[in-house]
């Protein structure tokens, strides 16, 4: 019962916040809504037994990515639209009718295609879908898998993170003189 309540809550939060992200015109708010979405996704993870993943989601997104984005928004002039330095007015940065129409069309196409594809796969795999069994702890298994079968990917991602760390620090550093 808990799980179903949790699922309902999480799904609602996810969908609602996502719609809010799409709908809002304030970038700061969008970011906060995104936080909600991410928490919702974490909740969804929790409902299908991905406890470690849920915790990771919270740690990484809530603790890191969202704050980073907030910083970035703040450092790049906040939520308001601005003119560029040449004085030419551009399309508002949060989008205009024209962009919405283009995006809507593109999304419509891809949505149809993806729906068709998932439907195909879904009908093909209908029999294979198993009911959810008991949720056991995944921490130990993930840990051992990461250090055995997926060691290479693990190491590469660690190098990637290091590279990202150094790279970000170097790129964002203001130029001397």
């Amino acid at each position, binding site marked *: 019962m808990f799980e179903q309540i949790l699922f309902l809550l999480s799904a609602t939060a996810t969908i609602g916040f996502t719609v809010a992200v799409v709908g809002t015109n304030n970038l*700061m708010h969008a970011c*906060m809504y995104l936080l909600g979405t991410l928490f919702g996704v974490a909740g969804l993870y929790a409902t299908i037994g991905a406890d*470690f993943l849920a915790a990771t989601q*919270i740690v990484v997104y*809530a*603790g890191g990515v*969202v*704050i980073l984005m*907030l*910083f970035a928004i703040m450092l790049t002039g906040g939520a308001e639209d601005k003119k560029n330095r040449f004085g030419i007015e551009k399309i508002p940065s949060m989008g205009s009718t024209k962009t919405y129409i283009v995006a809507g069309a593109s999304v419509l196409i891809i949505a149809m295609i993806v729906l068709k594809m998932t439907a195909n796969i879904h009908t093909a795999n209908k029999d294979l879908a198993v009911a959810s069994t008991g949720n056991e702890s995944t921490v130990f298994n993930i840990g051992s898998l990461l250090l055995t079968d997926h060691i290479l990917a693990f190491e590469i991602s660690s190098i990637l993170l290091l590279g990202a760390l150094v790279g970000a620090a170097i790129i964002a550093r203001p130029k001397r003189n």
Partner: protein
Amino acid sequence: MNSTIVSYLSQFEGYQKFVSMASSFLGSNASGYITFLVFFLGAFVIVNVMALIGGLGTYAERKISADLQMRQGPNRVGPYGILQFLADGVKMIMKEDIIPSASDKFMFTLAPLLALLGVLATFAVIPFSSGLMLSDLNVGVFYLIGVSSLVGVGVFLAGYSSNSKWSMLGGMRGASQIISYEVPVTLSILSIVLLAGGMSFGTLVNAQSGFPHEWFILHNPFTFIGFFVYFIGALAETNRAPFDLPEAESELVSGYHTEYTGMRFAFFALAEYMEVFVVCGVAAALFLGGYKVPFDLGDGAFFTHTLHLPEFIGKNIGQVLELGSFFTKTLVLYYIVIWIRWTLPRLRVDQLMTLCWKYLTPIALFNLVGCAFWMYYFEGKSLYVLLFKSAAHAAGAGH
């Protein structure tokens, strides 16, 4: 779910009878509902008690600082002024709730709630005793770290949405400080996780024992250093002195909560004091043996089997002892935090970052690697075991 409040209760007959009674009354299995109820009640109690402790924290701070400065401190309201915090609370509620017109109202209201939420959510996994633990998540520590970072978001939002220079700067400082110090803190915690072999608090605490030499702090040299790294990092994460830069009065008026008044301000204050309790509790649980009582008195076996007390009473005496153990350790640390605040001067911003990235993080990394080596070479035996047990073994004292 190793040992939560529910699993603790369900070992008593009374509870089981109650469940079966409720089931027959409802006509279906009522254990789920009752579990929910118990959780709800437990959460309610703990949140309130913690709020109380947070309030008492302000009182303690004032009293201890007075003591350190040879003053009296609050002494009018109640005996020794102990009800001072209630008076302050009443004052806060009575105050006018001001929202600056230029601020982003949505986020201005959201910020203190986020901060408080982040702290309160951590209580779900804090191991007060072997029975009094709301949920023993498999990813307990990890969850705690993640949730407590919401405080950072709250702080930042508060700073940003106030639309004030001081708040802005304070919020930025707070957020960057919290994010930065999360790194050494997490690494130090990770080395303990390495030793215990799990992330749930039950595992972590049960890997230790009642006596100091069985605590993780004295397990090996690396954890000994790791404790201090954690403690310093935790101080910075909770914005306590000497790292209270986000709310540095002399520079930023009052930092990120400059524009806040009334209950919203009280939320921030409460969040801070509760978070200090949380980090002290985590320190106690991870490094100082948590709720463990010497001679394994905590599981009540001594009282029930040796003293032949009734099971219910015996176990609860054990629980009380464990609670006492946990709170003693935590509150001693709490005292130390306050002591530090009133002793040390504040750091500069660049010194703060230097300390984090150039000293604490490398040390924490070194500790982590060191712990790994320790695990590999000494098969996880503690220093005490190596020194005395192995010596005794070598001397032929038996296997």
